[in-house]
């Protein structure tokens, strides 16, 4: 595997001595349960077990209400499971407090959202640079790395444009650059093509494909089987459980 990406400062192969055949999972869920209080309580995740290893590209697909969003929050260290364990880059979420979860997100996870969520007052380069803001990286270095990340998503010439001056596809590329600028262990994309037309959506999926080729670990969350088909591995969710896990096949068709 060629790793031409920005340095992934972690040691993804930890544990290889124990299990020489496979790299350590960057993401590991064991019977993860998430229950939201209420009467009756809502069980959004009902015992999900899942491993994602470094360099994989996985699509998590399912209809709305299948627990996708909740799973996204677990994988993204935005929330903790009620039962079971979720390990992201080796860290057990239930043992981390808020600042530690924040550190995990800042240093190991890159997020891409459906609505891009760029800061309207900042240029493309400055938006990408916010990906390094909470690591305490000095401003000049942030900017240099942001420009390099923009080059990688093919937006170098747009560095000084503001979000309002860019198309949806361009904004999503900026968001992807923001997610990868810190060289995360895992890039988490939540319906990244949901706000884009089919052609632009395909271009964005191609960007993810190229990143995957270059060694980035990508988890793509979508309701759209056609989008999921771009990933070598597809995990189908239904009613908070893993319905199927493997190479792509037409889910529910």
């Amino acid at each position, binding site marked *: 595997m060629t790793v031409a990406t920005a340095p992934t400062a972690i040691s993804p192969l930890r*544990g290889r001595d124990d299990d020489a055949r496979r790299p350590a*999972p960057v993401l*590991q869920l064991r019977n993860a349960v998430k229950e939201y209080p209420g009467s009756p309580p809502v069980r959004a995740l009902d015992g999900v077990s899942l491993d994602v290893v470094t360099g994989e590209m996985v699509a998590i697909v399912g209809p709305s209400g299948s627990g996708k969003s909740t799973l996204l929050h677990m994988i993204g260290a935005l929330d903790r499971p009620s039962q079971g364990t979720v390990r992201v880059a080796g860290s057990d979420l239930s043992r981390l407090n808020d*600042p*530690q979860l924040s*550190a995990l997100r*800042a*240093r190991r996870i890159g997020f891409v*959202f459906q609505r891009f*969520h760029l800061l309207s007052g900042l240029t493309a380069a400055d938006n990408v640079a916010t990906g390094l803001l909470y690591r305490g990286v000095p401003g000049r270095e942030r900017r240099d790395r942001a420009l390099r990340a923009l080059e990688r998503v093919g937006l170098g010439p747009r560095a000084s444009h503001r979000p309002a001056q860019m198309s949806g596809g361009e904004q999503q590329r900026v968001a992807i650059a923001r997610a990868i600028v810190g060289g995360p262990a895992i890039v988490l994309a939540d319906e990244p093509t949901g706000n884009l037309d089919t052609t632009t959506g395909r271009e964005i999926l191609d960007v993810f494909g190229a990143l995957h080729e270059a060694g980035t670990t990508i988890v793509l969350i979508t309701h759209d089987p056609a989008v999921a088909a771009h990933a070598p591995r597809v995990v189908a969710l239904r009613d908070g459980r893993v319905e199927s896990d493997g190479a792509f096949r037409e889910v529910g068709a």
Partner: protein
Amino acid sequence: MSATTTTPPALAPTRLRPRDIVGQGLVGLRSKRTRTLLTAVGITIGIAAMVSVVGISSSSRADLLAEIDALGTNLLQVQPGNDMFGEESELPVSAPDMIRRIPAVESASATRSVGDATVRRSDLISEDETGGIAVLATEANLLDTLDGTLAAGTFLNDATGAYPSVVLGSVAAERLGIDDLSGDPAVFLGGSWFRVIGILDPAPLAPDIDRSALIGYQVAQERFGIDEAPSSVRVRTDPDHTEAVWDVLAATANPEEPSEVGVTRPSDALEAKAQADEALTALLLGLGAVALLVGGVGIANVMVISVLERRAEIGVRRALGATRRHIRLQFLVESMLLAGLGGATGVALGAAITAGYARSQDWMFSVPQAALLGGVVASLAVGAIAGLYPAARASRLAPAEAVRAD
């Protein structure tokens, strides 16, 4: 697989550089310029009001103090006090001469009120209509001691002081309707005609002289039979030894009963007047504080709305690694910058208003540095207090919920 689940070394905690804390605060303000300006206006008005009130009062006081300085603070006044039974005492006849023997005394002038005498424009005017003008017998050097000037004519001297001549204080002349000496005006004083030989300019350090008709000691004794004991001695001292003279004046004026002598400094009354204006200043300052408070409430309001509108941004920042503390700090700093912007503008505006007003009044321009600095500090404090609640709300948003916000 279980062997692979050893906990990795703890990640370095997230951190936000101090420069970036301010930078992120500015981002929020820059992206909503109109709102930022309108919100800051409340603080601007409050701070401008407070700074200009302080500035105008300070400029006025600076002007008054300069005036007092020009008049000199080395004029003292000796008057009889009360004796131990509360009765009004008298100064000894020898008091003026004794005082003049103190080395640092430059000049001393005695006056004696001519109790019953009234001054009228003519004998046809009723004796009751005194116009509040007192008749004073004075020594000829009073004008020198007061450092006073004449608007017209001459002051009394040993010659004119022996005849029915009168010099009018500025207020007295105005009340009697005598503007100048054209036509040789005379006044009906204590039952006979006195020729007006001079009119004084206002004497700020001797308002009682302004309201008096001054006649010579000699004529006063002859016509009205006044006692020679002075009712007041004004003393001009060497400016460097005023305090020392003050200390010995009572004992010098009345060696037997020094406690029955009152010594005052007329310029102190003027300074007290300058201080008295502070009551009004305090009231206006209070009004400025109310404006500032209202401005602060406005900021709190806008910040609460801002937090609701920017849930998605908060979510993204949390996803990028911001801790609760970082979010709280961001909104707090944003609120402080907003108020600080208003405060700095207000300080500049207040100073400009003061400069304009001082110019129109021909005063010197003076704004205490404490007011300038205080204005900015006060606005930052208001911003911090106004931002506390919105910042706390922003930081309490659960990241999982915030990223889902539209």
